[in-house]
């Protein structure tokens, strides 16, 4: 351990931190929490069952914003009584290795209202059950609250995550542009 006379930072020996938190995920908002937070005052969130046809997907991808991960986006209309406040969309993209769930809120005119990351995970979740895969993480310390810079915040991983989310947003905006016309 390096001692330094500076009082404002010091190295500590790595410790095993035991935590009840999910080992491989950080959740910032649940879907419901994010809905309420972004559209404060909304009285209802009406699920908009939306299925993209292959033709629509191809058309949108041809406009150059990458591929949709799934054909079923989760879209809600946020309403105050009968007034439309905007749209709340949940989408998933991959970062470097991780699946990221984020929320995009769109105003009635199709402009972006807000973006919030909902959840960040190391994997899809199924892989966690695979013992051989888990062995990689035997020395991994698991307390997300204490450990900044551990999860999504390494350098290039964060860069790719940002890029993919931004592309996801672009795809959805193109989609809405088609729908709202």
């Amino acid at each position: 351990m390096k001692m330094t006379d500076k009082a404002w930072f010091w190295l500590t020996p790595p410790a095993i931190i035991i935590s009840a938190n999910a080992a491989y995920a950080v959740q910032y908002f649940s879907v419901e929490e994010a809905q309420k937070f972004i559209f404060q005052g909304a009285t209802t969130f009406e699920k908009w069952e939306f299925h993209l046809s292959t033709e629509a997907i191809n058309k949108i991808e041809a406009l150059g914003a990458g591929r949709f991960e799934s054909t079923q986006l989760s879209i809600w209309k946020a309403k105050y009584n009968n007034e439309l406040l905007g749209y709340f969309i949940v989408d998933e993209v991959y970062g470097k290795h991780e699946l990221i769930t984020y929320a995009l809120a769109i105003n009635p005119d199709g402009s972006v209202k807000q973006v919030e990351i909902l959840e960040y995970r190391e994997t899809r979740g199924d892989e966690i059950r695979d013992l051989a895969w888990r062995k990689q993480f035997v020395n991994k310390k698991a307390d997300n609250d204490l450990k900044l810079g551990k999860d999504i915040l390494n350098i290039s991983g964060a860069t790719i995550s940002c890029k993919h989310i931004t592309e996801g947003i672009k795809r959805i905006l193109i989609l809405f542009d088609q729908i709202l016309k």
Partner: protein
Amino acid sequence: MSNFTVRRAKPILGTIVEIGAVGANQEYLQLAVSQAFESIYRVEKLMSYFDQNSDVSCLNHRAWLQPLQVHAWTYAVIEFAKQLSSLSYGLFDISKVRTTHNTVPGKTSFKGSYFDIQLLGDNYVAFANPITIDLGGIAKGFAVDKAIDVLEEYKIESATVNAGGDMRVIGVKPITVCIRDPIEPRRDFKQVELHNAALATSANYYRRNNDRKGIINPLTAQSWLADASVTVVARECMVADALTKIVALNPCGAQRILDIYGAEIIENGRFEQYDAACR
């Protein structure tokens, strides 16, 4: 007293920016955090190299033709960058980050240097020659500092701002931070406790399979290829961010500059290769 933790993350500045804050009133915390994010968005808008409407783009297109007035924040960052260029004798140079230049009508590719940046006061900047600047090496750190300023204005008792590894913390109690091993990024490497301080890391992990060139030595035009990561701790994030580049390119000679800013290198295993080379 400190009952609530608010923690949010958004994609900004080409990375994921995470802000965490602790306090007694959750609504107030959320407001402070939202405002802190607004200042990050503002830095992106002013300093993005690719956004045609940013201060940086305007300067790159026209400052070689006439002086341009920029936002006070842009001016402050360029001013700091120039100061660091002087101190490092050009090892840090915002006009040498890009090896190719935006094609702008009337502007041919020109290899000037930070000497050509003219700070004229009242937030006016001019370029003596048609150079192209990129604030990518310090804008993230600056954005973190601005977000922290907002949180301090709101008198938040404990908070963290982290922009893809450039981070800063405020609070009575120190906060633990982990730095990843550059070769095995899934295995943590060192833990650091930060107390009202900032930390920034430049590393080559993940970079070897990328097209991105990473840190380029302005004086030799060579890329930094070491299998290493450099982490610097300083009071402010912009300082830490900028200094990682100097330390990476000149680990032995950087001490003089670190001392001027009261900054320090965090030793990590790979970096010890540099240490041995200096003796």
